[in-house]
């Protein structure tokens, strides 16, 4: 597969997943604000903080309010990680690989983008935003379903899944991190109903509320963290995402999991093993936010290595490659 094409598929998939997760963030914050005791100050700055782009935001919008944070994360075409921008990028990438993806995938991504563009034009009232975010989530689910159901599960599909899983791992880590930024009204509210409500909201923003309940019954911060970070079966947990991403990576290079033949495999394998052999106790002991922060840095390194191994066109071709391919081995 062409490097450029592989890269476009990978990013197409990442951007769709990113759009979905941004919709999840904003939606969970709406819910959290509804449950905060009246008189408490609305907290919209945590949402900007977890994007890592607080400074960019303040320069353009000033102090975070509900209206401007929603605009920023949803429709701002100048902000590269807004839902609108993500879908635009996803579509541009898809457009450049239309001959590789299935036509159903293209139609979905195109319709998805066009409907979001239309919504951006009409300025939805804030109370209709919930429906809009639900649509974005569904649009993304539909896309990944169509991808799984119509695209051959070969190299291209593995790049798409790897992109989706790495993106989701990163975003779930940020959803868990929201809790760190949101201030409880008073310090002695820890462990009170409000605290529990907040943890529940986090779970449902990762679509994990019911699955969690089935497994653990009661809301308990450590269990929620265990579930969203380390669970091996819940499809949005970080651990699950890394396992799947690693499988795809090895399908692409055709090497067994547990070994490595390039740096991408090495870095991802190490990160996944670390996670699999960590306990929630250790994470809490180390400090949740510090753990998540370190994880995100390592995940970015994995992304770097994938780029260098498969996509980077600037690396000059070695003679070795040419000799090998002179007689067209397919």
């Amino acid at each position: 597969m062409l490097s450029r094409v592989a890269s476009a598929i990978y990013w197409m998939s990442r951007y769709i997943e990113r759009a979905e997760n941004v919709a999840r963030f904003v939606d969970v914050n709406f819910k959290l604000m509804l449950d905060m005791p009246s008189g408490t100050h609305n907290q919209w700055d945590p949402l900007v903080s977890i994007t890592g782009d607080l400074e960019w935001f303040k320069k353009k919008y000033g102090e975070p309010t509900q209206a401007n944070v929603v605009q920023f994360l949803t429709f701002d075409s100048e902000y590269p990680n807004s839902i609108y921008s993500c879908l635009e990028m996803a579509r541009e990438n898809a457009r450049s690989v239309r001959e590789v993806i299935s036509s159903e995938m293209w139609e979905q991504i195109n319709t998805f983008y066009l409907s979001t563009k239309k919504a951006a034009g009409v300025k939805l009232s804030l109370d209709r935003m919930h429906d809009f975010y639900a649509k974005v989530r569904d649009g993304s689910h539909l896309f990944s379903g169509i991808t799984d159901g119509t695209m051959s599960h070969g190299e291209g599909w593995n790049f798409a899944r790897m992109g989706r899983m790495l993106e989701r791992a990163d975003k779930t880590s940020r959803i868990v991190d929201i809790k760190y930024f949101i201030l409880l009204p008073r310090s002695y509210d820890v462990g009170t109903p409000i605290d529990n409500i907040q943890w529940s909201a986090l779970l449902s923003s990762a679509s994990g509320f019911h699955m969690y309940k089935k497994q653990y019954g009661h809301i308990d911060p450590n269990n929620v963290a265990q579930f969203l970070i380390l669970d091996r079966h819940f499809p949005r947990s970080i651990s699950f995402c890394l396992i799947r991403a690693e499988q795809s990576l090895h399908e692409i290079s055709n090497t067994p999991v547990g070994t490595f033949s390039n740096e991408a495999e090495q870095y991802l394998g190490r990160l996944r093993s670390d996670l699999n052999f960590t306990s929630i106790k250790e994470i809490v002991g180390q400090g949740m936010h510090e753990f998540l922060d370190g994880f995100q840095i390592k995940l970015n390194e994995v992304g770097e290595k994938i780029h260098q191994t498969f996509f980077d066109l600037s690396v000059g071709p070695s003679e070795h490659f040419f000799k090998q391919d002179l007689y067209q081995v397919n």
Partner: protein
Amino acid sequence: MFEQYDTEGFFDELFESGGNPRTFAQPLIQRIDSMPKEDLFRRQTEADAAFMNMGVTFTVYGENEGTERIFPFDIIPRLVDGREWETVEKGLKQRICALNLFINDVYNDQKILKDGVVPADLILSAASFREQCIGLKPPRGIWCHITGTDLIRDKDGSFYVLEDNLRCPSGVSYVLENRHILKRTFPYVFQTSQIRAIDDYPNRLRDLLEYLAPDPVANPSVAVLTPGVYNSAYFEHSFLARQMGVELVEGRDLVVRNGFVYMRTTKGFQRVNVLYRRIDDDFLDPKAFNPESLLGVPGLFDSYRQGKIALVNAPGTGIADDKVIYAFVPKIIKYYLDEDPILPNVPTYVCSEPDDMKYVLENLDTLVVKAANESGGYGMLVGVHSTEEQRADFAERIKANPRNYIAQPTISLSRAPVIVGDHFEGRHVDLRPFILYGEDIFVLPGGLTRVALKKGSLVVNSSQGGGSKDTWVVADQYQPMRRMEQTQTASMAQAS
């Protein structure tokens, strides 16, 4: 529904001058007449939505916002009589065959120039003449593999060749997509009429490309070379690659080593044997042509000269669709094939000939003037629709560079009905059939009917407000479908 429709004295593709549908158009017109009006308009709306959702778009230069547009599509097809088509097909094959011999001659022995049939200075001064191609022997001796010849009809209904497009003609993707949509729109008419199928074009194209592979390899690796997503015809490049099941590459995906062309893949470098390039000669290879080109592949042309890769179409074919050379095509056909042209040219005045130039300057208000090396409807003066100023401007341009201009009488172009609001109106159309030259010459039955959607306009180019229609080549009698005689019990009986 067509009671109010008036052919207004033009040759109409579907109706005779008296207002009766042509014989071969009767099943279609009857079908449309039997449909409730709203139903027909709903189908038009659905077709528009389908094009938008499928992203069947083209890009318009010089606009920032909303640069992608759908190519407006009118669901009323344009029909061509099957018997008439046979003549068109023969005429096109003859023309392409002669033009290929001409290109080969121009870059090799130059007999036609030595014999004085085409003035040598016209060739050598043409902007589309490529010195780099002198002495070139392309694989299988074919230069113009893919052609999209523009045909028009005059008042009397006879076909004329308006332009030969031998470089990278586009539009075939719309032909295929239009047909796809119309099968959904008028399934019943397809069932009951004999409309010649076009769906195997991508297979034929792939066969053609593989046929040209320089070394006898079992599975030649074929790719479509595109300038990228921002090119106006990007949709088509991607569409064709997808339909053929081959890679779509950009210049930056390719690299030349030891004279061979490779594409960079996730598993290292892979040989390419045949490139269907949709990049103009000038941008193909900065080492051989325009050194500023960022789209091309350094060393590609050299690899081609060494016979290590096939390029489709061959570089240099533009010399045969120069609008001045066009005037000589009837002579070219006579010279190489010793036959009279089956499809006539539109009478053409070549401004480099003093007598012709004089006539042109005196009759600018009735002629259509074209620059020799422009396409897409740019650099053109339509005399009858021009202002005094525009004519003066063109007179200056012609005098300054006579070699670059030709003129033709205004042809009144045939018309076909299109949906306008809630009724039908006649609009001018042309026809671009596509011709593949490989093991043999194949003409795709039908082609792209372009329609000038602006009332009275004669310019059909997509960049200038044109739209398109599906084109049906129909036999005038239809055969009913064979009954399905076998039933389940019968086949069960056979099985036992």
